[in-house]
């Protein structure tokens, strides 16, 4: 069965970059805000969500991640955090929020593809 991946990213360029990095892995959906992303997770139940941490308007991807993991209907969805916050404490905060993987920007598209494939294989 084809896998579904949701990309939540407020920056147009980066949304495109992530889409190009992952499109060979399955069906790719796009969201550009926290609210839109969370609504699509609930509606589409994707296998994997790549989630930006600073989503603009002060919204945090960590909150979206916690909401996904707290809801039994979506807690099985794999979450890959993609963030330009690269300190050890940022990574720990991401994993504490329930993320399955934390990747720091800038990232290698190939590396992102491999990490996403590993998460999908485990899903």
């Amino acid at each position, binding site marked *: 069965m084809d896998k579904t991946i949701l990309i939540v990213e407020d920056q147009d360029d980066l949304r495109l*970059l992530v889409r*190009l990095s992952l499109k060979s892995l399955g069906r790719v959906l796009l969201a550009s805000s926290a609210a839109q992303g969370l609504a699509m997770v609930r509606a589409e139940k994707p296998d994997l969500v790549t989630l930006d941490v600073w989503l603009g308007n002060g919204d945090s991807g960590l909150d979206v991640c916690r909401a996904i993991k707290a809801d039994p209907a979506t807690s099985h969805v794999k979450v890959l955090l993609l963030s330009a916050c690269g300190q050890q404490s940022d990574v720990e905060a991401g994993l504490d929020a329930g993320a399955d993987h934390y990747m720091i*920007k800038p990232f*290698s598209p*190939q590396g992102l593809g491999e990490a996403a494939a590993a998460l999908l294989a485990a899903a």
Partner: protein
Amino acid sequence: MPQEEAHRLQVLLDLNILDTAHEERFDRITRMAARLFDVPVALVSLIDADRQWFKSRVGVTMDTTDRANSFCTHTILQAGVMVVEDACRDERFAASPFVTEAGVRFYAGHPLAAPDGSRIGTVCILDRSPRALDDAQRTLLRDLAGMVSNEIAASELRRRHQQRQENDAWVHGLLSHIPDGVLMLDSSGTVLCANPAAEQMFGTRAGAGALAGRAAASLLGEDAALLFAPSHRADAPPQEGGGRRIDGTVFPLEVQVAPMDMDGQQRYAVIVRDVTRQHDLTLRGRATEERRRKHFTTATHELRTPMASILGFSELLLKRDFDPATSRELLDIIHRQASRLVDLINQLLDLARIEAGGIEGLAIAPVDVAELVRQTLSGLNGLQQGHRIRVELDDGLPMVAADASKLQQALTNIVSNSIKYSSEGSLIDIGASSLRHDGRPMVAIRVADRGIGMTADQQARIFDAFYRAGESQDVQGSGLGMTIFKEIIELHGGHADIVSQPGAGTTVTVWLPAEASHG
């Protein structure tokens, strides 16, 4: 010198009587002695290390003679009256110049006792012919010596009293004027007395003694009890705690306690210091530190974001085959994000330079505002997209003392914002006028656009580093322009007002102090 003699000399020195003026209270005693004994010479003689000095004298004109071979030197070696009936027949003195040259034949003297009993000198009588002294006369001489000793003791007492008063005045003056609060507590921790600084610190009226009788724990907090424990060392560093004024308000305080013994009673000397100011400074320092940390985190985030596009898209282009149109699109993104990165780095360096340089970093010279506006607009030529810019400058504008290039940078930042956040072809007004503001002559430079405007919330955050109103991706910018603008204006002693309405436009007014010579 025998130890006893050394002590005797020290006592004499400490009395501060040697080489003082003649005094009637001593002179009346020597006059009385001369008359009572019917002798030509009567002396109050003080025996210094190598001389005898006469505090009072009848019948001689010199104030001092050699101590060697003197009669009095012998008198002070024994307790009672010493009588030399005929010096020519006394082998101790027969060859003395007092006898052979001055013609002294008779001497009778009695030691003078200092308050501690040391024999510091004599009362003596001398005659040119041999004589004898009966018991009644010996008693009389002893009584006269007693009177002189009393006078010496009296002056010593007066001197000590005066010294104590001076000491007290000194201590009182010191305690009244030092900014630290000083309290004395009894052994139960009750305040016995306090200096004015302490009274003021705890909110009682200085000099009213309002702290006396209060429990120290009610002022210094219960923690202060530890300071009175026997294990507390007097040389321990000051301890921080919470002070409580008598109106119940609290303040941060530093307290130091030293146990002391006062006439056998256990007392505590307590020094208290109001450290509100130091605390405020520490808090402000922490806030600055927190702001720096946040700024660093945000700056890192902002730098990594364009880098993600540059690195990611270039990797895709290197590893995959795209059609020419897509390749071009991706290269365009790389180029745009690389430009953004360069812009960001330049702005960050600029901000750091301005912050680090402070006022010293400015090249201040008289700046003509009209010229400043002209330069700013010519520098912006490439950015204008059909915007109409209307400039209205008052005549006779005063010069401003400023760094022309920095000020141009600040002005460029707000004019370019007006261009970026208003539609093509819309009008931007730039005006300058000379006004009094807060009672000072100022120059006001106004930039008004008819652009998208800002909400109150956006206005409140406009000077935050990396904040971009609406975070609109379609408008280029680092989010540092307004931060740099504010930094520059404030370094020049000026400030900025922003009036904005969403949909109606934004007006930024920059206030700069006019140069005094023109104001």
